């Protein structure tokens, strides 16, 4: 025993040295935060986290200009921009990880609408009600946008930056060569298959009509492909019965949607299954196949023109005349005659921010009329402020602005529950199993049903 005591003592001494090292390392942070509450007098730092990528720079442009504007009126405040270069999914993960601890949480951040509800439940987001009461601009936001940032308690936690819709984008030269009547507007799923068959016969080597599938394209698979199919079947409820708060299983619409994708891939209308599983397939479709008139059409978001515009990742000057849009049809042409999906992003503040007033001031500056207008144009967003939506410059931003805005009338939103990401992944897996021929649509739908029951529990599902 006597031998151990000196060793324990030496470990104790060592750990004290280590702790001393830690505390001296963290003292600058303490200084920074201790001065924060007296924000009128002492200097403060506002950390702002957002997403950027090689194909998405509009947010960086907005935040950089808002930083300059904000710092010029708040002499004592430093805005620290923290752009995260990542995919949407990885950004969501990174943000959630940052928000877990008050010491790493950014004060203001760019937040996906479908994460809003689960982040409210996690207690990550600042309640904005008191600020919004005195913010005159709030009345300009449309009801859908207000709901996007609302928690189950009725309070607002996030403010919408813009929304989007999904429509068919088709190549006019390809359609012309195949003698398709223009403007093209398929009325049923069968119309799409018929058109694809004509293109295939007329133009070998052209991908007639491709839609995403598989887990490679992640959320894009469901938002820009599978849900356009699923929400156009049966009663149009899609994944989730919001009134009963139950997930839908055993639906014929689910099987039919998978069957449509299976046909698209089996009959060679889409890209090959191997290409579909590459996460970068959208770059091939939008960046190469469409501009080179090697693809007839695809389903993509309202932001698509931002890729083709001058300064975008795939500049294509002729897109204004060579591309047409159409609403995605319902299965057999049922009312309302079209399907679209909407998502969108918001700005939110951390519940643990030391400077909530400054955080809201920053958000309100970023979301004011002028900044919202320039962002809506730069990022090809569908404006959620009524004053911005009425601006002539907004409507003239690209020739498709009206068409994609009209799709709002037939749009759907994803169920915003914390279980959603897993269920979305189960749906993606089902599309992958079908296009790769591993399972029939019936088998894949049954596997999805089992997966959903496993995720939410048997009492949270409803059979259709």
């Amino acid at each position, binding site marked *: 025993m*006597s*031998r151990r005591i*000196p*060793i324990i003592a*030496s*470990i104790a*001494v*060592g*750990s004290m040295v*280590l702790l001393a090292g830690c505390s001296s390392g963290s003292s600058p942070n303490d200084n920074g935060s201790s001065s924060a509450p007296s924000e009128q007098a002492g200097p403060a730092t506002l950390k702002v986290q957002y997403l950027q990528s090689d194909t998405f720079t509009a947010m960086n442009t907005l935040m950089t200009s808002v930083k300059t504007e904000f710092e010029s009126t708040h002499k004592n405040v430093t805005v620290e921009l923290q752009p995260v270069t990542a995919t949407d*999914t990885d950004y969501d*993960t990174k943000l*959630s*990880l940052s928000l*877990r601890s008050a010491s790493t949480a950014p004060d203001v951040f760019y937040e996906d609408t479908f*994460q809003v509800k*689960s*982040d409210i*439940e*996690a*207690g*990550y987001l600042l309640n904005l009600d008191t600020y919004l009461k005195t913010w005159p601009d709030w009345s300009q936001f449309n009801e859908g946008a207000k709901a996007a940032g609302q928690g189950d308690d009725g309070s607002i936690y996030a403010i919408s930056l813009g929304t989007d819709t999904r429509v068919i984008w088709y190549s006019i030269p390809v359609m012309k060569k195949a003698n398709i009547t223009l403007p093209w507007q398929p009325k049923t799923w069968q119309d799409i298959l018929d058109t694809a068959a004509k293109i295939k016969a007329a133009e070998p080597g052209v991908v007639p009509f491709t839609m995403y599938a*598989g*887990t*490679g394209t992640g959320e894009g698979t469901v938002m820009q492909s599978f849900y356009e199919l699923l929400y156009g079947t049966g009663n149009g409820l899609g994944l989730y019965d919001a009134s009963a708060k139950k997930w839908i299983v055993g639906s014929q619409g689910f099987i039919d949607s998978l069957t449509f994708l299976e046909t698209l891939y089996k009959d060679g209308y889409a890209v090959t*299954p*191997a*290409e579909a*599983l590459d*996460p970068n397939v959208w770059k091939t479709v939008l960046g190469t196949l469409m501009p080179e008139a090697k693809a007839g059409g695809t389903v993509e978001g309202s932001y698509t023109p931002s890729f083709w515009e001058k300064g975008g990742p795939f500049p294509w000057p002729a897109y204004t005349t060579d591309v047409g849009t159409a609403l995605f049809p319902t299965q057999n042409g049922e009312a309302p005659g079209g399907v679209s999906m909407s998502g969108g992003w918001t700005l939110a503040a951390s519940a643990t921010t030391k400077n909530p007033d400054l955080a809201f001031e920053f958000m309100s500056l970023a979301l004011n009329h002028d900044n919202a207008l320039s962002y809506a144009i730069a990022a090809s967003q569908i404006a959620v402020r009524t004053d911005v939506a009425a601006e002539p410059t907004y409507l003239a931003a690209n020739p498709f602005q009206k068409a994609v805005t009209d799709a709002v009338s037939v749009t759907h939103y994803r169920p915003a529950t*914390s279980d959603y*990401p*897993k269920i979305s*992944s189960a749906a993606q*897996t089902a599309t*992958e*199993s079908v296009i*790769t021929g*591993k399972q029939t649509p019936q088998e894949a739908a049954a596997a999805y049903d089992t997966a959903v029951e*496993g995720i939410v529990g048997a009492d949270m599902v409803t059979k259709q």
Partner: protein
Amino acid sequence: MTAQPLVKHDAALPTGGPHPHRTAGRLGRALPLVPSVLLLATFLLGPVIWSFYGSFTNSALSGPNAKNPQFIGLKNYVDLMNDPVFPLSLIVTLVFVIVSAIIGQNVLGMSIALLMQRANHVVGSIVGTLVVAAWVLPEIVAAFIAYAYFSNDGTLNQLLALIGVTGPNWLFSFPMVAIILANVWRGTAFSMLVYQAALQDVPTEITEAAMVDGAGGVQRLIYITLPMIKTSISTNLMLITLQTLSVFTLIWVMTKGGPASASSTLPVLAYHEAFQFGDIGYGTAIATIMLVVGAIFATIYVLLLRSEDQVK
């Protein structure tokens, strides 16, 4: 100091006096270890314990369980046993470890090391450089190179096209073959270097004596060389097994565990569950299983080492 020249030779002795107490000597020897023990405890043991604890909770990245994770006992493990992906992932992991590390890296590393002993200097250094180059590359760079090599219009298929063969889409049709070959390519250098060092320690007199006794090349290898470097073999096996078990970047870049979890080893599955689905509790349960698999392999190798020591 000049008065006590002897003290200089024994670094473990404290400067207190020429004949210190035994306890003080032990303390003196333990002291330099303290920082590393503390660092290991903080950065290795701490996370392991946290992960083990986390696997019994429903801790999540977002949602209500992020704020107040509940203790849910063995539920994560029960769910794991009922998850159809888990046995597949376990098999994929074992295949990956056994084929790419224990067979691939190990045997290839040994063969190259043996051949290099005989090869002329120029050939030896060219081969050595080529093999070590893959090891020197940062993992992410090596992974991108492997991706570029195996992808559908990648180097391999272009080479095959030159001889008129249309190569398959390796990453899609044969994902396991692709990641195993990539890992063999990347990791062989390590085994080669270990065996080169070990072979240099085999005294030439013994091999020469065996040669005089009429032993052929294969016999010398089996009866002389291999038994003499047995310790190096098991140490090497232990290191490459644990290394391969934790390979993540290579697989993530090449296949992301796909298609449809066909190449989803346990680290990929754990990442997927914890960070893509936000189910941290479930992800840590997979990490714990991984720890157990690693411990089983390590125990086997340690036992092998120990039995050799006893033979000696």
